[in-house]
């Protein structure tokens, strides 16, 4: 199996006037082509930092990162981001929003526009193409945000707590929806979250990070017996609770 992402002994230290902040220490893992990886850890343990490193927005202070064998040295277009909020621009229509990434990359052509239209058709947003984000539901907005990312043909998707701004009900539905699209488009994905259930429901593997400095505490292979895997059906699987308890114990959450 081809390796999509290699994170080799990555460390990250932030320099601040108050002192050094060791965000990540010797983080080492690989992601296979087409795999769905979830990273869980307490807040402030360096999850967002890790994604910024993989996307090339930040440079690690130690170690190296490779995407399909190419070393990441600066902002790269190989990774597509989805952030906590959908960040659709209120002053752009849905179609214009979806084209934002390609527009920034100066790659808008009639074919690309057609592709955007096809995406919108496939994922039920075609009628909304000339509407503004505020006229869409939370789920549709998140879908539009994903299409915006997919338009730039990223090799891997990085989702930074992509669903945590949604209320619980919507979140279950949107998670299912986005998961289906990612699978249909055959994308490799790394999702960071502090929600254990969400991680188990989507992941092929769950990586547990410790408190700061984030080090990998354990990696779980998630294998669930369910008929057709989706985040919702995963939650019905008999093994779900077992994984939940294991990861809960590993995270060592105190209040």
């Amino acid at each position, binding site marked *: 199996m081809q390796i999509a992402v290699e994170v080799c002994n990555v460390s990250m230290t932030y320099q601040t006037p108050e002192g050094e902040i060791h965000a990540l220490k010797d983080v080492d893992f690989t992601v296979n082509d087409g795999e769905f990886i979830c990273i869980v850890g307490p807040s402030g343990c360096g999850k967002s930092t890790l994604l910024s490193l993989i996307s090339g927005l930040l440079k690690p202070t130690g170690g190296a990162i490779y995407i399909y064998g190419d070393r990441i040295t600066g902002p790269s277009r190989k990774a597509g981001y989805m952030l*906590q909020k959908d960040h659709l*621009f209120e*002053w752009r*229509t849905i179609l214009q929003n979806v084209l934002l990434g390609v527009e920034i990359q100066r790659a808008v052509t009639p074919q690309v526009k057609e592709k955007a239209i096809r995406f919108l058709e496939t994922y039920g947003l075609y009628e909304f193409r000339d509407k503004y984000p505020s006229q869409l539901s939370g789920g549709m907005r998140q879908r539009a945000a994903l299409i915006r990312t997919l338009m730039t043909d990223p090799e891997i998707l990085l989702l930074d707590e992509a669903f945590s701004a949604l209320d619980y009900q919507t979140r279950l539905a949107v998670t299912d929806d986005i998961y289906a699209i990612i699978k249909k488009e055959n994308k490799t994905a790394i999702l960071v979250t502090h929600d254990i259930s969400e991680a188990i429901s989507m992941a092929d593997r769950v990586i547990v990070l410790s408190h700061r400095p984030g080090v990998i505490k354990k990696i779980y292979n998630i294998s669930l017996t369910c008929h057709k895997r989706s985040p919702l059906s995963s939650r019905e699987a008999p093994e779900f609770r077992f994984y939940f308890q294991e990861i809960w114990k590993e995270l060592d959450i105190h209040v």
Partner: protein
Amino acid sequence: MSEHEFQTGAAAATEAPISAEHARYLRKLKREKAAVRLTQILVLVLLFVLWEVLADARIIDPFITSQPSRVLDTIKTLYAEGVLFKHIGITCLETVIGFLLGTVLGVLIAVALWWSQFFSQVSEPYLVVLNSLPKIALGPVFIVWIGAGPVAIIVMTLAISLIVTILEVLNGFVNTDPDKIKLVRSFGGTKCQVLTKVLLPASFPNIINALKVNVGLSWVGVIVGEFLVSKAGLGYLIVYGGQVFKLDLVMTSVVILAVAATLMYQGVVYFEQWVLKRSRFI
């Protein structure tokens, strides 16, 4: 409430056939609005009538307070002398130029400050001092440097409105969600693209706000400038009228000024709506 009732209720809110209750509510709303507008007009008319009558009855001294009929006469005289539109025109032109320059330069400087962390840190104490300094104090300096003329007046206007614009626009930039910037950067966006794709459109409300504040400030700048330079314009008429005790002239200029300032403010409001509609902002 049954599901059926609920649905018809929801439909009534959005579609043509409105319930009698809603129609009543809309009528009431309209009536209230009309009442407010009517009272506003009435107050204005009453004020002018009172002013006129009291002055006629010599309860107030029209030599000091002037009166509406005298204001009209003054306007007619100015018009007959052919200087009415000259004075109005000069003042308005100075204001518009000062206003536009203040806005454009303010936005440009805000962009420059955002662009260079170093430049921004260096200029911070200067901005603080300039912001708290009463810019009017600089008036005589400008006149000596630039000479008593329209240019000095425009510079005065600039001095008053520029700093406010810079700070307001910068405020918009700073308050833009950093994740929006991260998003653009993750697509490989350059600093310039961050500016054009996110910061400027996201700060549009701040820019409009600065425009609205600047309309008022520009008038202050121009009138103060004309007070100091005293060659032509409404500010000149006010100063001149005050000096030779022609209060009719002073009041007339003030009334014209009020109308002109209001028109300009409305102009900005229309501009805002026009831009919103054109780019179809919500």
